[in-house]
């Protein structure tokens, strides 16, 4: 691939790729990190083995892509252009797919997705309920692009937004376009992107930076990883356009070391973009120069905070500083720096290509566009979902997510990761946008969505998040470090039955103080999971403190296993498995659990076929 020296040359080059038509069917295998975990690499090896075989075999193209979103049924194999969607494919299925579907055009019935509600089989990806209500503007190209091939991105109109901008759009007009589109930062705060861009453009200083925040550290969230792995060029293109608008010639992508595939794919993408002249000096023959470096983080959650991230790039301890002077004026190395999240950058080329008018029609009055959520926890369809802003939580969880598995009841959903809040069933019809979520004590965050069913104890959950945050706090400021430590001590006491009624007041007091007095957003939002569970599940806290009972049956110190005599058949299956030999009884007679010996491991309850073991 040769370096491109002019915009006209780029336009010709891009068209050769977008016009390319392929007659052969294409086998597309999704292979992000989630796919790897479920064995997609073995499937790829099996396909490659067939491809390398000499002799007569059906002709087909082969493409390895990033994550397709539906992680529950990985590895996914799609046969394009027919759009056939095969799920949970194993290496043993590969021969059959090639001979049946590609060779003879028949469908391999058992690999199709079966709708658990209607029982119908879905031939195409778009028929699957999981995908039906989604709007795949940002993540959709993950299914069509081999992240290691820049040609795939170019074929889908890649870098045309950049070319359009470089043709002579004034930076001010560009910022205005982003303003009209109403793009808000996808990293958590929901700050208007144009405001940051404009302040950074107007800030004094010759050297400025743009930074992409890919330090995604929320438990159970992986939207940014999937984008970096599946479509790194879209982020690069967004950054180059942003750099042009702000007037910057240097950029950083800050990504954590735990994302090796993402780092690898971004490195390849930067290398390819440089070779084509899309990055570096005089981009596409214009006077505009910009280059990107990758900064690899050690994986501290706090480094997702903008000032801590910049300290980390500088080679210092990832420690936030006061933001009374904004980073757009004094950021990285005290120079004006504009930091946006991965998803925010990925939205930029879309806005430029389709126009602010089109973009602002999607979403609600205050929040425009789509948002990617990682839907995890006690949910039927685990995966990444991209939905227009303003969709209700109920639609995401029940229509797209397929509801709660095993016929259990929905209890709460945690949005916004460890700094977000837990929302109860009564708020399920809440439209998802930045402002509405913060009104009810939660936040959009970067897009983690953890669903909980009736077997989740909310006090235990608050304890989990407090523990996570205490580990991940930088430890610098007193309210966050000491406050979290004391919150955790008190909540732990509540879960072991040592809670006092006045504890609730004290928890509120510390939480309120942390919200006001902490140094950075981590500390200011850290009490959210606790305060929101106290707000919406106060009865559960009271049950723990006053009745010394855990209604969800999770907190071991407060529960007791018992055998219902009329249900027990005396099969002794539980007695055989009990590690403490706490269950006794005559054969075919109701058994009994000795509470003194019982360690409350729950093995007996899981084993019993008769549902005779109850937690009280």
């Amino acid at each position, binding site marked *: 691939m040769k370096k491109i020296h002019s915009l006209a040359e780029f336009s010709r080059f891009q068209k050769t790729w977008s016009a390319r038509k392929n007659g052969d069917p294409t086998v597309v295998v999704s292979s992000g990190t989630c796919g790897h975990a479920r064995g997609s690499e073995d499937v790829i090896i099996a396909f490659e083995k067939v491809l390398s075989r000499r002799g007569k075999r059906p002709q087909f193209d082969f493409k390895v892509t990033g994550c397709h979103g539906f992680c529950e049924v990985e590895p996914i194999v799609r046969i394009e252009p027919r759009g056939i969607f095969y799920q949970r494919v194993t290496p043993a299925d590969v021969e059959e797919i090639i001979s049946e579907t590609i060779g003879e055009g028949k469908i391999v019935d058992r690999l199709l997705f079966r709708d658990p509600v209607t029982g119908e089989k879905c031939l195409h990806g778009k028929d699957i309920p999981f995908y039906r209500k989604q709007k795949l503007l940002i993540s959709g190209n993950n299914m069509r692009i081999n992240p290691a091939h820049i040609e795939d991105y170019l074929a889908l109109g890649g870098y045309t937004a950049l070319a359009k901008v470089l043709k002579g759009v004034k930076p001010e007009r560009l910022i205005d376009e982003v303003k009209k589109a109403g793009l808000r930062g996808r990293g958590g705060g929901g700050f208007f992107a144009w405001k940051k861009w404009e302040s950074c453009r107007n800030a004094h200083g010759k050297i400025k930076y743009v930074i992409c925040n890919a330090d995604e550290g929320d438990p159970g969230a992986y939207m940014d990883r999937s984008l970096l792995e599946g479509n790194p060029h879209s982020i690069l293109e967004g950054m180059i356009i942003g750099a042009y608008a702000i007037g910057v010639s240097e950029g950083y992508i800050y990504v954590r070391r735990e994302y090796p595939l993402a780092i690898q794919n971004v490195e390849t993408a930067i290398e390819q973009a440089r070779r084509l002249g899309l990055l570096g000096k005089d981009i596409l023959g214009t006077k505009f120069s910009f280059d990107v470096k990758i900064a690899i983080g050690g994986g*501290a959650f*706090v480094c997702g905070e903008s000032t801590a991230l910049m300290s980390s790039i500088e080679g210092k*301890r*990832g*420690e936030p*500083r*006061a933001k*009374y*002077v904004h980073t757009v004026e004094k950021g990285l190395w005290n120079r004006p720096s504009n930091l946006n999240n991965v998803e925010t950058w990925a939205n930029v080329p879309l806005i430029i290509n389709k126009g602010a008018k089109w973009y602002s029609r999607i979403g609600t009055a205050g929040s425009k566009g789509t948002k990617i959520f990682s839907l995890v926890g006690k949910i039927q369809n685990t995966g990444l979902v991209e939905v227009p802003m303003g969709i209700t939580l109920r639609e995401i969880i029940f229509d797209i997510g397929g509801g709660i598995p095993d016929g259990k009841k929905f209890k709460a959903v945690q949005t916004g990761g460890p700094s977000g809040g837990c929302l109860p069933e009564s708020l399920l019809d809440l439209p998802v946008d930045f402002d509405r979520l913060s009104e009810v004590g939660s936040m959009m965050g970067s897009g983690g969505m953890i669903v909980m069913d009736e077997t989740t104890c909310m006090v235990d959950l608050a304890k989990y998040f407090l523990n996570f*945050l*205490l*580990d*991940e*706090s*930088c*430890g*610098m*400021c*007193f*309210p966050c*470090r*000491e*406050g*979290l*430590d*004391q919150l955790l*001590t008190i909540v732990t006491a509540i879960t072991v039955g040592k809670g006092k009624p006045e504890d609730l007041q*004290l928890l509120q*007091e*510390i939480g309120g*103080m942390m919200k*006001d*007095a*902490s*140094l950075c957003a981590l500390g200011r939002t850290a009490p959210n999971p606790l305060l929101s569970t106290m707000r919406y599940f106060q009865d559960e806290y009271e049950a723990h403190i006053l009745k010394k009972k855990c209604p969800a049956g999770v907190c071991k110190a407060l529960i007791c296993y018992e055998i219902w005599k009329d249900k027990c058949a005396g099969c002794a299956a539980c007695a055989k498995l009990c590690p403490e030999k706490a269950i006794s009884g005559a054969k075919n007679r109701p058994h009994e659990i000795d509470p003194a010996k019982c360690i409350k491991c729950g093995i007996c309850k899981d084993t019993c076929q008769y549902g005779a073991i109850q937690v009280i």
Partner: protein
Amino acid sequence: MLNITINGAEVKAQEGATYGACRLCIVEVGEGNRRRVVTSCNYPIEEGLSVHTDTKKIIGHRKLLIELILSRAPNSKTLQDLASRYGVEKVRFKNKNDDCILCGLCVRMCNEQMQSKAIGFVGRGKNLKVSTPFAKANEVCRNCGACMYICPMVEVQCRGPQTTGDLCNGCLRVTPTCVDVYDRQMCYVEDCGTCVRPGSQPAGGKSRKQKKS
């Protein structure tokens, strides 16, 4: 560099040289909807800024912060005095009896004043501590002792009753109060015992006699 006077001593100060970790200097700035809590040590002042240092919210937060810091190091005379000044009489948290409150003064002293950079923060969250690299003695440390000089915890411990959660505030109860007389100085008067509340058992020095009031 700016020239300023702190407690009578003339010092050169650098802009933005504060650390902002203890958050005890919180104040509210602005009016109405725009009112927010900031730390006065590093908030850049501007023309017409309206500052509130004594609102109910600020005093409440500050008291709670003192309580939290005291729970970490209940025997510090400096912290006990601070508590007394703010009328904090009870610590509702479990004492941790830690020797270090992680204020970072030693690290800054070593790095900025002594130009040695021998110590720094290690770890994060609850595992944060001040240490030399890899917790080994290193040659850049000149054993100058500046870190000990500035440490608010290297001092004679408060000899008040050390029962968990109870602060004697004894030094406030005598007239004139010990805080008034000695101001910021540390209490070295081992056998004075004026501050010890009548009837309470001093926990620190065995040799000390209780003074009858």
